[in-house]
């Protein structure tokens, strides 16, 4: 690898022409880099297609950008708003919290406190490197510690409290086991009695930290001369209610707090109650202090909210019993915002063509392509290509090949990696995807664009299956639209989510990307309304409209999803933790909330496999005049798409199926289906009620991808080809093939307003055969 490392991201990821995009760039090894702007037309370098194509864009951009090394805070924690330093320099105090530790580790973990690591000043309560509960104190001259002799059992609720009395120098530490029938990994049948109560006279007391530290939950304050202050001693696990008293508490008072009683007012400095601001519509990063001074906590890197607390008793949702959902889950590897300084702000010209752009920054042998999507200032074309940016984020920087043992069995591939993967994986500071697990094994439910994302680079191929995925794959469709001469506007999931139907209304036809998997309620509603009002949708993907996804209002950069119940899920939310903190909605599959994708576009997820893609074969319905125009130029028994850049076929990767039972419109024509899948294409788990052998492609008729067509009111229609590999077949044979032919037939018809071809053939068939 080179000595110069360049990483960057664009904010926002998608912008209108005429607006501004900020680029955050961090460079090690140089203080300036060259920059140029390109529009990317095709990403996949596979020699069977057109290869990587970009065109230089002449724009007002300095040739050379001044850059610096920027640092990323990895790990989630919360910091108290305490400008008056009410929690600083305490001499007599009690710290307490309900905690659910998830990962003993070789580093100290601070649950709460105000501890300056470099200066050894302040006080902190947490878990020491040997796994004991400990409180440490320091006045700059010396440090002291009181700790339990027992260690904590991971994933069990405990109450911990530590007090210090400056006059007698006596410290006390209480650990009280709070495992109930409901709240922990193990139940009360386990004969463990992990209570502990330690008294010890210390030699050193706590000192004031002033500006060297702040009061934090799940972290202490470290300092580096180049980087400044940052959070370290990161805690893995949940913290429920916590607080600080300005006096040592008696044992009886400690026991009362452990039971969950409201804290006594006498001497209470702060009481952080995460349940206090849980609203039906979700909750933000603030953990309110209901004590006398209102020293609210602000979460960094999105501590996960709406999680079950120590007093949880099996309610499925925080909406039903918010007082039992005080859990806030902190992770030492969570990262939702690099928060870098802006390196360059680019104002996009008003007439900039809609497209996928990259700011290419290079120097010293290093290079990064920072992608962003440009949408026209006002809608221009009749056709909109809806880029599934929610999906892009969901897969951002995924670690599947590196960490999921099962990934190779799912994809039936040996992964193919490249050097830049290693560079990213070595750093491990640009966060996870919603397919990954945090270090303590919990699934990652947040992903944001405010970080460099390797999977968004246009040439990137997903290692697990060695072909482009998401944005790089969608570029095949962009290339084909250019090639075939269609005028199009790019819009994104984020636009659709923010604007709803208004985003789609200007267009006669809207086409989906290869994998529109992550959908919010707003997006579902808008698509449904668009079709209802005469819009035309070309659903050209697989496994679409699948996960209930949300973003916090006012913060589109970060998506949230909780994977639960059923479906192809990389992880499983813990019981009770399936509701989105961003919106308050139940997450999981749309299908499980009564909105199977079949109800909107006629198809829904049925199988996935990555070994080889197969062609579609015409079904009898395709010969009906209502739809036969779609097959103009094709032979009756032609295999459709027995070629492609993703698995060598147009039907594969992830496939969607027609199913009347799941809501496919009853008048839908089943025009074609894929054939001949291997057993590496099993029926998806949400279809499996009883498990029995033979649910693979060679034995189960539900393992297939379908091509359908149905009409909607006011000349609306939906053409759906339920396969991720579909669009990646377009660039083959120089863009002139039978998949492209079908696309042209449909597009030409859909872009023409008024009656659709074949609309007249609605009479009863009078047959002589």
């Amino acid at each position, binding site marked *: 690898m080179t000595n110069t490392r360049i990483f960057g991201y664009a904010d926002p990821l998608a912008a209108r022409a005429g607006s501004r995009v900020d680029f955050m760039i961090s460079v090690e090894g140089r203080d300036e880099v060259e920059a140029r702007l390109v529009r990317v037309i095709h990403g996949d370098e596979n020699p069977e297609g057109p290869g990587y194509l970009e065109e230089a864009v002449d724009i007002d951009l300095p040739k050379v950008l001044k850059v610096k090394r920027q640092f990323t805070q990895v790990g989630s924690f919360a910091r108290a708003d305490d400008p008056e330093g009410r929690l600083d320099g305490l001499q007599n105090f009690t710290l307490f919290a309900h905690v659910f530790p998830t990962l003993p580790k070789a580093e100290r973990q601070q649950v709460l406190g105000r501890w300056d690591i470099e200066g050894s000043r302040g006080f902190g309560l947490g878990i020491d490197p040997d796994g004991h509960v400990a409180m440490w104190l320091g006045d700059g001259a010396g440090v002291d510690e009181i700790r339990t002799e027992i260690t904590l059992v991971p994933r069990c609720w405990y109450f911990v409290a530590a007090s210090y009395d400056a006059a007698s120098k006596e410290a006390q530490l209480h650990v009280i086991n709070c495992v109930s029938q409901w709240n922990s990994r193990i139940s009360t049948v386990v004969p463990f009695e992990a209570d502990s*109560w330690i008294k010890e006279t210390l*030699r050193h007391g706590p000192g004031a930290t002033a500006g060297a530290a702040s009061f934090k939950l799940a972290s202490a304050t470290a300092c580096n001369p180049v980087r400044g202050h940052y959070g370290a001693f990161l805690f893995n696990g949940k913290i429920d209610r916590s607080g600080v008293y300005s006096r040592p508490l008696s044992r009886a008072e400690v026991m009362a707090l452990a039971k969950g009683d409201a804290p006594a007012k006498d001497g209470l400095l702060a009481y952080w109650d995460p349940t206090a601001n849980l609203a039906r519509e979700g909750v933000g990063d603030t953990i309110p202090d209901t004590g006398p001074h209102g020293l609210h906590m602000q979460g960094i890197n999105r501590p996960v909210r709406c999680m079950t607390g120590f007093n949880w008793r099996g309610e499925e949702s925080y909406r039903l019993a918010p007082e039992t959902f005080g859990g806030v889950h902190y992770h030492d590897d969570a990262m939702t915002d690099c928060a870098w300084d802006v390196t360059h702000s680019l104002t996009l010209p008003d007439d900039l063509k809609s497209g996928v752009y990259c700011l290419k920054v290079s120097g010293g042998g290093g290079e990064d392509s920072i992608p962003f999507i440009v949408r026209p200032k006002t809608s221009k074309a009749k056709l909109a290509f809806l880029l599934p940016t929610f999906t892009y984020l969901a897969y951002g920087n995924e670690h599947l090949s590196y960490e999921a043992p099962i990934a190779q069995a799912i994809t039936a591939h040996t992964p193919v990696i490249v050097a830049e993967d290693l560079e990213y994986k070595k750093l491990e500071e640009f966060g996870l995807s919603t397919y990954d697990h945090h270090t303590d094994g919990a699934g990652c439910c947040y992903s944001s664009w405010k970080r460099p994302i390797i999977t968004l680079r246009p040439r990137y191929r997903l290692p697990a299956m060695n072909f482009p995925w998401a944005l790089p794959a969608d570029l095949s469709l962009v290339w084909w639209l250019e090639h075939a001469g269609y005028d199009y506007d790019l819009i994104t999931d984020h636009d659709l989510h923010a604007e709803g139907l208004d985003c789609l209304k200007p267009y006669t036809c809207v086409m989906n990307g290869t994998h529109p998997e992550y959908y919010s309620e707003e997006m579902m509603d808008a698509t449904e309304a668009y079709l209802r009002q005469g819009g035309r949708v070309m659903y050209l993907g697989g496994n679409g409209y699948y996960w209930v996804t949300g973003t916090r209002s006012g913060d589109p950069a970060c998506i949230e999803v909780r994977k639960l119940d059923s479906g192809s899920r990389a992880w499983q939310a813990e019981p009770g933790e399936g509701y989105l903190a961003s919106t308050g909605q139940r997450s999981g599959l749309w299908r499980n909330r009564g909105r199977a994708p079949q109800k909107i576009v006629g198809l829904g997820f049925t199988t996935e496999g990555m070994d080889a893609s197969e062609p579609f074969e015409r079904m009898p319905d395709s010969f009906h005049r209502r739809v036969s125009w779609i097959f103009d130029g094709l032979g009756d028994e032609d295999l459709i798409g027995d070629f492609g850049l993703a698995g060598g076929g147009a039907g594969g990767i992830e496939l969607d199926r027609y199913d009347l039972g799941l809501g496919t419109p009853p008048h839908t024509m089943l025009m074609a289906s894929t054939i001949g899948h291997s057993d590496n294409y099993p029926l998806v788990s949400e279809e499996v009620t009883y498990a029995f052998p033979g649910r693979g492609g060679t034995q189960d008729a539900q393992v297939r991808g379908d091509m359908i067509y149905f009409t909607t009111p006011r000349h609306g229609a939906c053409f759906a080809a339920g396969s991720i590999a579909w669009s990646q077949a377009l660039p083959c044979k120089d863009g002139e093939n039978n998949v492209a032919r079908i696309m042209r037939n449909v597009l030409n018809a859909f872009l023409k307003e008024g009656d659709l071809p074949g609309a007249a053939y609605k009479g009863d068939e009078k047959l002589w055969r």
Partner: protein
Amino acid sequence: MTEKKFYEIGQRPSEVILHPAGDAPLHRRRLPFTRRHWFKWRSRLNAKTLEQERMLADKRPLWWALGLLALALAAPFLSNPMLTIAAIFCIFSAINVLWTLIIGTAGIFSLATLAIVGIGAYVSAALNVYLGLPWPLMFVAGGLAGLVIGGFLALPSTRLDGLYYALLTMGFAEICRVFVQQLKPLGPQNGSINNVASFIPSDWQLQRPGLLLGFAGAFVILLLALLTFRVVNSERLGMLLQTAREDEAFAEATGIDYRRARLHVFLISSAGLGVIGAFYAQFYGSISPQVFSLDQLMLLFAMIVIGGLGRSEGAVIGTAIVVLIDKGFLNLGPIRILLVAAIMLGVTLFLHNGLAGAREQFRGWRRRKQSEARARRTEKGGEVMPEEAIEIADKQEIYYRRFQKRLRDRLKALITPELIEEHRQNPLGHHSDALSRVLNHFRRAEVADKYAIMRQPEAFHAYKIVAFSGTRGAPPRLVDDRTYHDINEAYHAVFLLRVNDLMEA
């Protein structure tokens, strides 16, 4: 399948186990002026019962207290000769404990120990006899003399290495002996100074009360020596030197001035030895050049070797054995010296670090036996033996191992040239039942050491084979340097590697 024998395992606890109540305060008390606790406790959740257990992690303080208490209690009941032997034991133990500080803690191989004791004794005795220094001040004089001589002897210690320094210090002892013997004023007494005043009143000399008082004094000297050892060895100085012993360069790089620390330890010990010298002169009421003699030094050396270098308990145990033989079996005559030599020989032949290290050595031997037996009985990736199962927390892993082993045995039978050819022709897509089973097994393996393909920057189709680390942030390793120019060839090469691994497992 080889014949396997399953041995029963399991043991009753062999230690005293406390079960502290979680709802009563546990006071953890500290040694005054330190952050140390009186006892080092070890608590755990017993993996077999999940009960909270509390045990003494370091039982040595307990053994010390019991041993010293037994000696102190037994003394009044000992016969006069045995009481003298006990007192001599205490004195030599004290000397050896301080010597251990020099050799073990500071790592300076000095043989001038008795010389310093002698000089302390001579200086303090001379001051008493010729200048009338009262006996309590003799300890101060002896200590100062020890400190000064220690200071001189310390200087070359940073210059000379091990053996040379040992020879130098031995020579120093010899010079002292010759010097004292040839000193004119002492000529009439053959180099001795007699009639030294003592903490034992003169009319008690050689009487029962005098012997008891002598023992008590020696016992206090031993306690003081042990305290010195504890404070020097386990506190700041000892910690610094501990780091230096592990890695001198590292210690220096982190700003630890271990040479200075060594010097300090040497000086402290020398002063202590000087004090013991003063005590020695008072205890016997005289001092003779015999104290500088080589045979005394060798006897002292025998004590340390038998007990074990570097530990206070070694110094005391070795002293007890040698003193008992040397002074207790006087009627055996010269044979007792042979006996000491024989024990010394035996210890050096069979023990790595004297008697004090025997327990650790035994444990090491048992561990070695255990791992030998493991290696003999455990097949890589095969059945888990009962003695291995206790180390696996997730018992499901044990079933996985058994299942995987049997699965591999079945899959091995499926590997044929035809199957390999089938894969070569078509690494992806439809496969025969046999190939599907083999591939699925390969694909489901754990990530650590799992093969992957790495695209090379020179061309779209240029691949090398690597294996994942299985650890976040740790890069894969290159498996072989060959470049494949067709992805199917690379897939097949990975397949062949996996088949090879399967057949060898």
